[in-house]
Structure formats: structure tokens, C-alpha cells
């Protein structure tokens, strides 16, 4: 099932071809910042739970002081970091390995589509992402996943949905798949 490499570099801007290298680098650095904030250095193995039972190794270059300062807004950094992990997880573990972008007032809206499809044609799915920097209780990850599913299925009932939530302190990513009607 897994096409996983040993460790995927968060600073590798070519991991997701559809995203611009500059933004992928920023999101990758945000993920590295979140791991470092949780006391991890250089590399970490994430447990992938939910509809997968797998693991994913990620590594990163230690962040400079300047980088650390730019990511000091924990909430935004956690969101960006979680996006970087979600893109990698989706690309590594699902058939939906291309991410299309469109814009929404809350930021980017990511639509997953199969390879070789253009402009939202062909089989598509939605991607909802969320991140938790530090878990406070055991059930936090599952609670967040349930919240995201509830929120996303309000408007996306007729297409499949992936919900990917990363808890950085617990080194765990929950992936849930909701079939469309």
C-alpha cells in the first residue's frame, strides 16, 4: 500500500509539483517549526492512523533564528505545517496524488484529483486539513477530526472527502475518508 520513502524532506520543494516551490518551502518550514516547538530535532516518524495504519518519516534542516521568528504566530504556523504534512500524506498514501488549487476567502481550497486530469475534470475529492500543535488530552485528535468532518460534509456531501489532521506533539496524523453520496 505504501509508496513511502525512508524520510521525506520537508524542505524538498518538488514533493508536490502543483504547488509553487516558494509556498511549499514556507509550509514545509512551518511543519519543521511545529516539530521543533514540540521538542523534536531534524527528523520524526509520524504514525498515520484512521483509514491507514502506516508510518511516514519526515526530516528537515534545522531552522535559523530568522525562520523561527517568522513562524512565531503558532496558530498560522500550525495550519501551514499541517497542510505540508497533509499534501505529503495524500501524495504518498492515496491514489489522489495531484492537488488542484482554487481560492476561497479563508485561503486556498484544495481539490484532489487523479493524475493527468486537467482543471477539475475527472474524479475529484476534497481535502480538509487541520493541525494541533500540542495535544492536551488523548481524545483531542479524534475530536478535531470529527469537527472537521461535520463542518466539511455540510457542503460537500456529493463528493468524497479526505480529512487530514496532524497532531505535532504526538507525531500522529489522522486520515479519514468520507465517501460522497
Amino acid at each position, binding site marked *: 500500500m505504501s509508496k513511502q520513502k525512508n524520510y521525506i524532506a520537508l524542505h524538498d520543494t518538488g514533493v508536490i509539483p502543483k504547488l509553487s516551490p516558494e509556498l511549499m518551502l514556507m509550509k514545509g518550514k512551518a511543519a519543521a517549526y511545529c516539530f521543533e516547538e514540540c521538542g523534536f530535532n531534524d527528523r520524526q516518524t509520524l504514525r498515520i492512523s484512521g483509514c491507514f495504519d502506516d508510518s511516514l518519516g519526515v526530516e528537515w534542516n534545522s531552522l535559523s533564528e530568522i525562520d523561527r521568528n517568522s513562524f512565531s504566530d503558532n496558530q498560522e504556523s500550525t495550519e501551514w505545517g499541517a497542510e505540508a504534512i497533509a499534501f505529503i500524506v495524500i501524495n504518498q498514501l492515496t491514489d489522489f496524488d495531484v492537488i488542484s488549487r482554487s481560492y476561497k476567502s479563508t485561503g486556498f481550497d484544495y481539490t484532489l484529483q487523479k493524475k493527468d486530469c*486537467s482543471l477539475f475534470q475527472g474524479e475529484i475529492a476534497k481535502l480538509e486539513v487541520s493541525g494541533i500543535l500540542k495535544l492536551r488530552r488523548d481524545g483531542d485528535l479524534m475530536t478535531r477530526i470529527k469537527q472537521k468532518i461535520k463542518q466539511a460534509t455540510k457542503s460537500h456531501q456529493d463528493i468524497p472527502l479526505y480529512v487530514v489532521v496532524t497532531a505535532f506533539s504526538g507525531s500522529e496524523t489522522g486520515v479519514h475518508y468520507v465517501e460522497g453520496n
Partner: protein
Amino acid sequence: MLKEIESIHNQAMDLIEQAQVLRFKGERDKSNSIMLEAFEKEKAAADSLKLQDIEPSRSILYRSAASIAYELGMNIEAERLLCQGLAGNPPVWVANELRDLYENVTQSRHLEVHGVHLSDEEFQMSFAGGLTGYGISPLEEFTERVDAVRRIMQRTAQRKMYKGEYRIKIPKEIRTKFPTFVSVPRAASFAITFKIAIPDEQLKVFEELPKGELISEVMDCIELYEKNELKKLEEKISSDQYFSNFSGLIDKVLPDGENVSLVGFTYNKDNEEKAVSLRKTREKLEITNIKEQDSPNILLGLNTGDEVVLKGILQVADRSIDVPLIKINSNGILYRVLVPEGQIDDVVRPLWDKSVIIKGTKQHKKTIQMDKIQESED
């Protein structure tokens, strides 16, 4: 043809990514000008499919272009693009998103002031949403928010006048110097005017704190809160008690996302009409930590510092210790709840003897440090 359109769309998205990075670095003007460039490209991509029935591409591109226009404050353009999107054959999920965005775009009109001139001592508060119609609003949605805004104004006046010194009760001097009057509600969808002055007050020359400055200060705080710039807000307020007071009160003003989806404020600053809107929805506290255990005390088994959500009747206030403390009766157990000083009078007191839900962290065996409190719906 699709490849060409996709190429234009990708250029637009690349520009937006650049704009996001610039915004992250704090270069807002540069970011906006790149967003505008992105908008032109995304609109061109969408318009290329205007007469084609290629879905969901057509409607997604219109939604995306409209979102950029909305973010840039180009509401009329956004409205037009959303209508174009809906005029095609969008799949249900895209149509829902188009409608949601249309609602947000048109809500901005509720902030307009119709037929009323706002003076420097006045501001308009308006509501829109599910149960709030044109000129009509459920009473409880209205009164609770009006009272919270009144308290925010007076607490801000107190903070400015007393140079950050906090007092649990709003001093009489503040209540006298900054009285609050509200106008008859009007249709806008539902709006009232607040006046922070005695109606016929003329003498403004020696004002210690000009009313316009006070209103501006409150609106700036509300805007920072809406943008989630909490660190900046904390620095601006620069007092733990006042920050906690503001956080507790603004929670009562926030839209609930169902009956009220927008609370807007319109005011004058430097002879220019300005608007701030709250779209962020209030976190609804829910009991999630119920588990089967021998003891009814829900704190047993939790560590100090663990988050806890508790429902019960707010019964007693204990003033015998330095820290404000209340007691909550939940299933026959009396929990001690430490309340932030800034919230005891304005946020907690109105809920005495009512069924409430509190969110906080465990301190001791039966003691919780309160973070948030809400009246329970049942």
C-alpha cells in the same frame, strides 16, 4: 482549450501563493497588488468558460475569482461573478459554496448606514443571519449583544481613564461620563445606533477622553480580534484583567453562526465612514468529557492542567479569598471555580443561578481554573 485555461488559472494561483507569502512577511500592500493581478487572470480563466457547460471547472473558477474579488473588497464584482457561477450547472457542492460566499458578500451591505448621519459619539451596530430578518431580530440575540457592547465601551473608557488600573465594578465616574444610549432599531437588516454621550451634550472642549477616540479604540480592538491578531490585541490592551474582560465580553457579541452570522459596526473616523465586522463564530461549549467511572466527580482521573468542560448550576460566589471564586453544582457535587478577575462582574455575574457550561483546566481535586463560561441552552 482546457490546457490554455488551466495555464491562466495556474498563473493566478501562483500569484496568490506569492501574495500569501508576502502577507505572511507583513508586506500587505505588495500582497494586495499581486492579488489584484491574480484576480484579473482568474476572472479571465472563468470568463473563457462563460458560454461552455464544462463543470465543475466553470463554477469552481467563478467561485475562485469571486473569492479573490471579495478578499480585495470588490464586492459588486464578487456578486456578479457568483451569479455567473450559479447561472451554469454547478454540482451541488460547488453551488453550496457559491451561495455561502454570496451570503458573505451581500452581508457587507448590512454595514451601510441608511438615512442616518453618525456623529463622532455614535456608531451603528447591525446584525444579519438566519433568524435576523430585514428590521426584525429575536430579542435575546439583540439584548445580550447590546449589553456586552455597552460594557466593552465602558471598560475601555475605564482602562484609558484609569491608566490600566482594573476595578471589578465599573466606577460610577465612568458610567456617568460615558453613558450609553441606543436608538430605535431600524431595518438594515437590523441595526441600532449607540450614542456614548448625553443626547444634548454640547461641551467637548475639555474632554479627558474624546468619545470618538474611545469608539475608535474599541473598533480597533474588535478588528484585531476578528483578524485573530491576539498578540497585538494583548499588547494594545496591555493589562491581563482588561484583556480577559474584553475576551469574555466579545464572546457574547460574536455571531453564533446560525441565528446571527454577522455583527457589524460602522463609525466615523477622521470624517470617513469605517466598518468592522465580526464573522468569526462563537465556540459553542459542549460536554465531551463524560466517561464511565465510579465517582461522579469528573475531575478524578484527570491531571492538573488538563482541560475540562463542566455543566451545572452557578450557585455561590465566595469573596473571602483574593481570587474571585464561584461554585458550580454539577450532579450534586460542588466544584470550586476560579474566575479571572476581569470576568467576574461583567461575564459571570449575569449568569448566577442559571445552568451554565464552563471550560477550564483542572487545578485541584474539585477546583477548576475557568477559561470560558456560557449559559447552557437547556
